[in-house]
């Protein structure tokens, strides 16, 4: 029984951290996952497309010539 309890606590914590659409209070946090049809435990990276290329000067100062990769990493949760 103690095993079950710690497992449950882990799951709650997981639900808090992950991008889940359900609030933490619902027990059904594994529903409504837009990636549910994909194999679990695999990582997916979509192919990059050649588009929205910065001018060389802008790219140099932004650290990438690809607008799509110019992310506002601000060191905390959430974007601008």
């Amino acid at each position, binding site marked *: 029984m103690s095993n079950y309890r710690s497992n449950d606590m882990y799951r709650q914590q997981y639900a808090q951290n992950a991008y889940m659409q359900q609030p933490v209070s619902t027990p059904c946090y594994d529903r409504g996952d837009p990636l549910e049809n994909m194999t679990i435990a695999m990582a997916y990276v979509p*192919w*990059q497309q*050649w588009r929205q*290329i910065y001018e*060389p000067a802008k*790219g*140099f100062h932004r650290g*990438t*010539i*690809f607008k799509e990769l110019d992310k506002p990493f601000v060191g905390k949760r959430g974007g601008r």
Partner: protein
Amino acid sequence: MNNQPNRKEMLNMINEISFAVLETQLYLDTHPCSTEALAYFEECSQIRNQALKEYAKYYGPLTIDTATSACNDRWSWINDPWPWQEGGC
């Protein structure tokens, strides 16, 4: 001498275009058949090579590849300050 391009501006431009070349190179590593990326690479690469030659002509070669573009009848490779010397980098 008045139409000699500004050294710092030339270096900046070389840095910017070199970065664009490098980024496109990395993209092409995973997308070798992208004709758009290939065309952009060719364009940027040409501009970069031209800029390196131009820079070498006025201020000496940045790399050994443009040593012959520094129009001198003498070996000028060691004339410019090294990166750790004042005015070097």
